[in-house]
């Protein structure tokens, strides 16, 4: 019998005061051998993440970043706010600059608490029976579960969107997931002849999935500071969600190896899935692969290793979603809540012909029938991957090259086809639409300097690129989601923009402010053209030095931090150049009571032209159709700077920035302590010390957001600032 167990605990203090994260892990493994043919293997892992308070940064008065970076004065000292209760109103009323929209950051950190407690348990028991040489039978049952509890203590006098009575609240969000996978399979693994090896496997799987969640909240509190449901001022609001799913599967795989140079593989799987309609819930999907080791066939000189490979794999599934929020039908009944999604992989129930019944009037429900036409003949969605690659090493592995070309065909998908709402419905679930994601990945490794006793230099370079395009549209449709046509990239980004004349100048109205195009305009692509990383490692005797640079090139994003700091008057650029002059002059005019007629007392003239005569006519795409009726002149109309900014910078185009960035992500200097130091120790076998720095340099067009957090987004949110981290690691092996 083998047995091992491990346990670990870690504690991390957050950047924000009064925030932390605890992690506890326990693992046990044992293998019980009944005889030399039968054994029972078990493994159980318990993991708990827990904290009484995590920070919230999402946009809104609930966010520290919102209160501090966007809407507080740049000249305020946050430590002046440490004493946050009004005298005589302790526990009831915070002190702050105003009492309508914003919250004292210290009050938020100390009193507004968000607990997060999550227990993950997974484990399995497997019975292995070696029937004959090369033939095994395995019976395995595995569980994956989590139990999540989140709560929020929302203090009296704290205000947030939709909870303006500011009388506190208490919320609990509970979720449990249980999944069991039971497998039984036969495995054959033998060399059939000296030159041919065969691995074959066949078996069945039963997946059983259960999920339950509930969300309960008070509707204001009676007693300040008592976070209990019985303390609710108005009726409690509670919602729940549950789901169950079964998947019955049969599967097989075959791997054939011929003379160490040719490998062939094939798999197949049949699933019966409970989320699909009865007559289409059983489906098959296969994969095949082949690889050839050319270097085994011939001597290729400097090429010491060369392998070519190719594969095809198809996967089908239906009507499940990866992540879930609190009780999906009615997640945040009282208007406010930070959306937290946990892993799910369960039924979405999106093909149901059912009513939703939210509370609509005086706490009573109203029912609304689904706006999506369900499909009784719905087939599973399909995703197919084609991949070819080359792996080569040169000069005795001094140089290595790994090249992959991949293609994913996503489709036919389960697609909610938009239809005329005059049908009574807004969409119809069908099997349609194919998208293609195709790209290259190249990895190059090299060891320019190799010297066992001296300097060594290893380099690793990665480069990749992909594009995702629309390959097939539903029959009779030539555009989806308003803008996407056949062959278009899926990361085309359309959003608000000012109107421009035929020369590209911004068009202003009679009050000197930019006119906004009524239709979203194409602003660029949100995905990068390519992604790169370079890792260098130098070592000399006991010292090594390692650093990684990486980044992305191409793509655009709307910088929301810039948008809001402009509109709130917090952006540095509003104090510089023409804007700075206008801002100061506006302030002087206001001080002198000359803040009346913007066209006389204003001090900012927007760059561009002004519509002098004519009524702009747009087509459905926001393209101007009557240029000949319009007359423009240089814009000379003065306005107040903040009015100008508030309008122009409310458009996404004005806040668009390049997503190109690079980072010096990590630098490590390590000293390996000489072995002889420990020669006489029975206790310590080796030790090293390293200095580690992370996120040391960041290059980007604008640095008020960390693009690393918005890899696929075209619109940034608020984020906790990315910290430069420095540390010392001491590593001792016993």
């Amino acid at each position: 019998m083998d047995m091992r167990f491990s346990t670990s605990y870690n504690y991390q203090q957050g950047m924000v005061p009064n925030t932390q994260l605890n992690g506890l892990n326990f693992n046990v493994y044992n293998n019980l051998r009944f005889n030399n043919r039968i054994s029972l293997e078990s493994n159980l892992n318990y993991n708990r993440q827990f904290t009484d308070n995590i920070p919230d940064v999402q946009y809104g008065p609930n966010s520290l970043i919102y209160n501090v970076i966007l809407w507080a004065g740049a000249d305020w000292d946050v430590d002046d706010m440490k004493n946050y209760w009004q005298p005589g109103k302790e526990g009831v009323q915070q002190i702050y600059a105003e009492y309508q929209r914003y919250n004292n950051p210290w009050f938020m950190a100390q009193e507004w608490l968000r607990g997060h407690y999550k227990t993950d348990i997974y484990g399995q028991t497997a019975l292995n029976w070696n029937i004959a040489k090369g033939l095994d039978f395995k019976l395995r049952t595995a569980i994956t579960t989590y139990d999540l509890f989140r709560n929020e203590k929302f203090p009296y006098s704290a205000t947030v969107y939709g909870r303006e009575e500011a009388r506190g609240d208490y919320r609990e969000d509970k979720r449990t997931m249980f999944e069991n996978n039971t497998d039984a399979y036969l495995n054959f693994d033998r060399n059939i002849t000296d030159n041919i090896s065969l691995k074959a496997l066949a078996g069945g799987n039963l997946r059983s999935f259960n999920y339950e969640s509930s969300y309960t909240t008070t509707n204001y509190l009676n007693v300040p500071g008592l976070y209990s449901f019985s303390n609710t001022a108005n009726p409690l609001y509670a919602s729940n969600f549950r789901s169950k799913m079964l998947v019955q599967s049969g599967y097989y795989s075959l791997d054939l190896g011929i003379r160490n140079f040719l490998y062939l593989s094939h798999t197949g799987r049949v699933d019966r899935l409970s989320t699909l309609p009865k007559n289409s819930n059983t489906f098959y999907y296969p994969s095949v692969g082949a690889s050839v080791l050319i270097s085994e066939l011939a001597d290729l000189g400097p090429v010491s290793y060369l392998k070519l490979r190719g594969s095809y794999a198809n996967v089908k599934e239906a009507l499940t979603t990866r992540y879930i929020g609190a009780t999906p039908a009615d997640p945040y009944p009282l208007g406010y809540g930070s959306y937290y999604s946990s892993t799910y992989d369960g039924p979405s129930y999106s093909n149901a012909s059912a009513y939703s019944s939210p509370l609509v009037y005086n706490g009573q429900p109203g029912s609304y029938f689904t706006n999506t036409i369900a499909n009784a003949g719905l087939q599973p969605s399909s995703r197919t991957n084609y991949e070819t690659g080359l792996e080569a090493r040169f000069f005795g592995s001094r140089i290595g090259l790994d090249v992959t070309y991949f293609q994913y065909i996503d489709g036919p998908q389960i697609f909610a086809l938009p239809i005329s709402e005059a049908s009574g419905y807004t969409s119809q679930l069908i099997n349609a639409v194919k998208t293609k994601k195709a790209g290259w990945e190249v990895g190059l490794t090299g060891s320019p300097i190799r010297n066992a006793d001296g300097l060594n230099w290893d380099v690793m370079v990665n480069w990749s690129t992909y594009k995702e395009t629309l390959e097939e549209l539903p029959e009779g449709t030539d555009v989806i989601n308003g803008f996407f046509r056949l062959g278009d990239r899926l990361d085309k980004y359309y959003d608000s923009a000012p109107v421009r004349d035929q020369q590209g100048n911004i068009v202003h109205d009679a009050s000197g402010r930019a006119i906004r195009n009524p239709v979203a305009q194409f602003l660029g692509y949100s995905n990068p053209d390519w992604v790169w990383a370079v890792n260098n490692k130098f070592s000399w005797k006991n010292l090594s030095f390692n650093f990684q640079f990486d980044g992305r090139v191409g793509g655009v994003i709307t910088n929301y931090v810039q948008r809001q700091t402009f509109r709130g008057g917090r952006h540095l650029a509003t104090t510089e150049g023409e804007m700075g002059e206008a801002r100061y002059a506006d302030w002087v005019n206001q001080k002198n009571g000359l803040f009346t007629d913007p066209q006389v007392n204003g001090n900012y003239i927007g760059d561009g032209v002004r519509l002098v005569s004519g009524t702009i006519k747009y087509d459905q795409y926001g393209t101007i159709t009557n240029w000949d009726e319009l007359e423009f002149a240089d814009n000379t109309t003065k306005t107040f700077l903040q009015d100008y900014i508030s309008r122009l910078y409310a458009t996404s185009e004005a806040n668009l920035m390049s997503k190109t960035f690079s980072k010096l992500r990590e630098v490590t200097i390590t000293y390996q302590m000489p072995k002889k130091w420990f020669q006489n120790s029975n206790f310590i076998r080796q030790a090293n010390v390293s200095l580690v720095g992370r996120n040391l340099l960041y290059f980007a067009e604008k640095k008020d957001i960390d693009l690393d957090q918005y890899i696929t987004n075209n619109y940034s949110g608020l984020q906790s600032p990315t910290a430069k981290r420095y540390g010392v690691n001491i590593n001792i092996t016993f």
Partner: protein
Amino acid sequence: MKQFRYIFMLAALILAADSCQKFDELEADPNRSTQVPPSLVLRGILVDMNYAPWGDISRWNQYWCSNYNYYDNNEYWTGSADLRFTTLKNVIRMEEEAQRINLPVVNAYSALGKFFRAFFYYDMTMKVGDIPMNQALLGAENVAPAYDTQKDVLKQVLVWLDEANTDLTARIAASDVSLEGDIYFGGDLRKWQKTVNAFKLRVLVQLSKKSADADLNVKGEFSKVLGNLTAYPVMESNGDNLQFIYGSVFNKYPFNPDNFGFYADRYNTAGTYINTLAALRDPRVYVVAEPAAAKLAAGFTATDFESYIGAPSDEGLDEMATKVQAGEYSRINKARFFSNYVGEPSIQIGFPELCFNIAEAINRGWATGNAGEWYNKGITASMETYGITDVAPYLAQSQVAYAGNNASGLTQVLVQKYLAQAQHSGLESYYTWRRTGVPAFAEGGPGTGNSGVIPRRFQYPTSERDNNTDNYQAALSRQFGNTTDNINDKLWIEKD
């Protein structure tokens, strides 16, 4: 080996337990129902009917203005309107649910169903023009329905209203008390019947430019109702108003103590409304607005009508904001609109409007009766909703006293209807302006948007352009001679 046997049995048990679950039942969503009582569907529809006050619509009706460009401006729309077909689908579902619980074929829900069809089709066609009707609401059977002309839609609206009246008459005679979930009238079918007929008169009056159309027979239909109020009962007081009542815990009035700090000063009154009230020396101005601070500083008092001045809705927002800060415009009366959560009921179809619609029809010679009497009744009823009971001195003023069945009398009626519909009845005031030009809306300045022009219609939803392209383009060409879906093009109902 003994242990092994037990373990094997245990594993077999787990497998068996899983398979026992009823596989085929798992497709259905256990969190939502496929059948509900018709009353729940009704409640949803009734909530959908409500046009809340103090939104974009109230600014487009020129009752108030935003002076705070971070959130809002006073510009007119540039795009499409929401259509109401998904609500109409719920109307059909409600009727089906009523059949499912074995109510008679003609029942209270089906009678209201006819009214809802009339209400929502009117709502849609007034916004965009032609819309699908005969081929609409068929679900998967027709996902790209052809459009019907505005005339055909409005003709059918009148038919539905007649049918609703007939069916309600029958249900009232049968003492039907099956209607539940009625947030407006608590199931009182008589009040619904009055609403149906009042609404019919609204539709007919909005068709004034088509009063000569023989197919529609606007005049005949109007006098049919007015000439037989027993068969076609209409509202008789504010107690019959179809109105949305706000509450202090749920459904708070849009302006309330919670948002006092946001809205009270960021929005101010509009001149089209306030200046009209002030010019008529109308006491309602004291209730809805505060005197302009600059006027008080200049020596006027809070009871002087000169102290009440609203901003021109077409003024540039930067200019309006600075003038508001200088106290040049009247703000919203905070005491009335911000001191509690219930505010005032939001009237969707009301008695005052009915009075003015009848007065207009008589003025136009569609029916016989005393227009001046209806006009006075409408004013008195509107005053009552503001707590003003002594109306006689106001009515006696020369500029208020009904000028007779002539053009000035008509303008008086339309102006008073506009004043009575402040914050009420959705886009009705805009439609009346579109039809008659009364009262004169502020237009032309940079605050209007759309190059200074108030649009005449909404675009169709972009989903029609993309998913019902052929029918959409055919409808546009038929109506406007082009396919650009222009908000400045005139609808059939507006053409003389």
